[in-house]
Each structure stands twice: as structure tokens, then as C-alpha cells.
């Protein structure tokens, strides 16, 4: 008996995912712009399949110093969302959100972690709103988990969770930032095949 999770995703599934997640990313950046009170530009949104063995490269390599905000997705489908920053950029993002001059934040204490988590909440919330509106699926995100460590260490539990049913992961990623202040982050979403199929199905029905 074939496990539906094991069946390969079709090209039209991937296309649907690229379109909806692209719109979701744009919405997430609108949310962030509103929160920070300034225009945040988004780079190219890329959707691709990545072998799990290479997944840490998405975060700059296994030993790269990384600040990340993780959310588990649940509800009608599962998945993972991770916002990834170089630590200095995470500090700068906290300064921006707090209205402090650049260079004020130098480490992630409880307050700084909470600010980063809130930034993540806004972006993730806006992203999921697009996915939910498009698909009719009910999707929830966990409270944020803010981590600062080696990239491999942050992501390997997520990789393990995906590895149970697959050797590759579908990701959508984009960079975002402003010209004035050097704030570049990567927004990484790893949906379960169920989530991608749900989106694809709802688009065919529409």
C-alpha cells in the first residue's frame, strides 16, 4: 500500500505551491512593513526541492552562526517555518523594531528574543493568512521558538522530522530588507506534501 506521503509531488502541485507561497511571502513582507512603519523590500521568491542532506546550506552551512525563529505548522496540514538571520542582522532587526539606533542590541536576551519572536509572528501570520484564504485549509502556527546557535544544530531536528517520510524537502525562500539599514533575512517554509496537495487541489477546484 503506497503511503500518500511517499508519492512524488507533481509539477502542477509544485506550480500551485510556488504561486500561493509567493503571494504569501509578499503578504508577510507587507505585514512586516506595517509593523516596522517602513517599507521592507522583498527579493526573488524561490521555490525548489532540496535534498535533505544539503538543507543546512539554506542557512549558510552547518557551522554558520545563526539566529532563527522557528514555528511548527499544524491544523489541516503540517509544515515548518523558519526565519533565518546572521546574528548581527537579528540584533539590527531588534533595534529597528524597538526604534533604537543601530548597534544598540549586542546579544539576544529575553526581551530581544521576544521582539524577534513577535516579528516572526507577524510575518508567519500574514503568510499563513494567504495560504488559508487560498486553500480554505485551517492552518495554525506554534508560538515562536527563538534560537541562536550553529545553523546545523538549529535545523537538524526539523530535518529529522521530514526525514521520516522523505529524502528531500520542498522549500520556499526569500530575502528581505531595506536600503537604509542592513537588514537581510531569509524566510524559509518547508511544507508537508499534504499542505502542497491541499493548495493544489483548491486551485483546481477554483
Amino acid at each position: 500500500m503506497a503511503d500518500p506521503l511517499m508519492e512524488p509531488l507533481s509539477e502542477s502541485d509544485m506550480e500551485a505551491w510556488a504561486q500561493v507561497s509567493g503571494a504569501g511571502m509578499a503578504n508577510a513582507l507587507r505585514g512586516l512593513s506595517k509593523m516596522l512603519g517602513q517599507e521592507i523590500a522583498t527579493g526573488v521568491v524561490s521555490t525548489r526541492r532540496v535534498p535533505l542532506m544539503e538543507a543546512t546550506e539554506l542557512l549558510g552551512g552547518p557551522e554558520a552562526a545563526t539566529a532563527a525563529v522557528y514555528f511548527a505548522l499544524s491544523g489541516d496540514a503540517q509544515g515548518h517555518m523558519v526565519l533565518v538571520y546572521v546574528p548581527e542582522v537579528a540584533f539590527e532587526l531588534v533595534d529597528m523594531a524597538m526604534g533604537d539606533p543601530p548597534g544598540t542590541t549586542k546579544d539576544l536576551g529575553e526581551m530581544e528574543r521576544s521582539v524577534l519572536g513577535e516579528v516572526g509572528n507577524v510575518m508567519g501570520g500574514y503568510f499563513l493568512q494567504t495560504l488559508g484564504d487560498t486553500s480554505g485549509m485551517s492552518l495554525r502556527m506554534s508560538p515562536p521558538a527563538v534560537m541562536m546557535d550553529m545553523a546545523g544544530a538549529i535545523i537538524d531536528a526539523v530535518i529529522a522530522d521530514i526525514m521520516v517520510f522523505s529524502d528531500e524537502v520542498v522549500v520556499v525562500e526569500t530575502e528581505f530588507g531595506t536600503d537604509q539599514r542592513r537588514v537581510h533575512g531569509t524566510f524559509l517554509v518547508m511544507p508537508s506534501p499534504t499542505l502542497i496537495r491541499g493548495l493544489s487541489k483548491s486551485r483546481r477546484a477554483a
Partner: protein
Amino acid sequence: MSAPDNTSVVGLGEIRVSKGADDVLVCLGLGSCVALCYHDPVAKVSGMAHIVLPSSEGRTLTAPGKFADTAVPALVEAMTKAGGLKSRLQVRIAGGAQMTMASEASGIFSIGISNIEATKSALRRAGLRVAAEDTGGSAGRTVRLAARSGEVVVNTSMSSTHSL
């Protein structure tokens, strides 16, 4: 530490064995994953597995190194092929951190604890004793194993370094 070109990265789910004089096997940036290290001091051969999950649950395997229950015997076999003897193996393990305790996300991140438990119970079943370990906690680790000497060196992200 030896020159980088003698260093072999043991990727997720991989198993590597080496007996080269200056060779170093390394697992980079371990969180919940576990570096399983064997050394035979007589044959001067070492092996490392990068364990990702606790149990293969009877799946057909392309990479036995992925799972604790299959990595333990598969690494014994690889060591034997390279001239090692099971009864002489020194076993060291490192990794199995829980990177976050945050509420609902912690379910996924508690996999590190399961990985450690599964590795130890597979080692017991194989009749192998753990000589040293650096496991658990909430910090990432890079683990290096010097092939000839069997020395295991652990670096954490907080940049502390120590031998096992």
C-alpha cells in the same frame, strides 16, 4: 588539529571509517543528531556515524547511518571490514541536544533525547559499552574524531573545546 584536506565530513545519515595517520572525521553543527564514534586502538582505525533519528522501524534502508538502531551494528560492520575488532572497540558519543524548550515546538526538538536513548540501548544490545559521552543540553556541537589516536574533540557554539 590536522590540515583541512585530511578532514572528512560525515553528513546526515552517513557512516565513514578511516585509518589514515592524519585523517579526521567530523560531524558539523549537531543539534538533536548524534555522532557515534568507534575506535580500535590496536588496528588504529576509527569510524563515525551521523545519526538523525532513533528508529528505522523496520524500513528498508539505503542509509543505515540515519537511524540509531541500524547505525550501531552498521558501524561495527564497517569497522570490521577495515580491520577493526568488535571486542576492542572504544565507543564515544556526542550530540542529542534539545535546542529549544519553547512550548509546542518542543515536540519536534525533543528528538535529541530519543536519539541518545536509542543509541545507548542499541549499544547495549550490541554488547558495547560507552567509554565517554557529551550529550544533551541545549547547545550545538561540532565533533571531530582523530582516526589514528581515536581522540574525540567537541566544540560547542559557545566556543568551548574539550576532549572526550
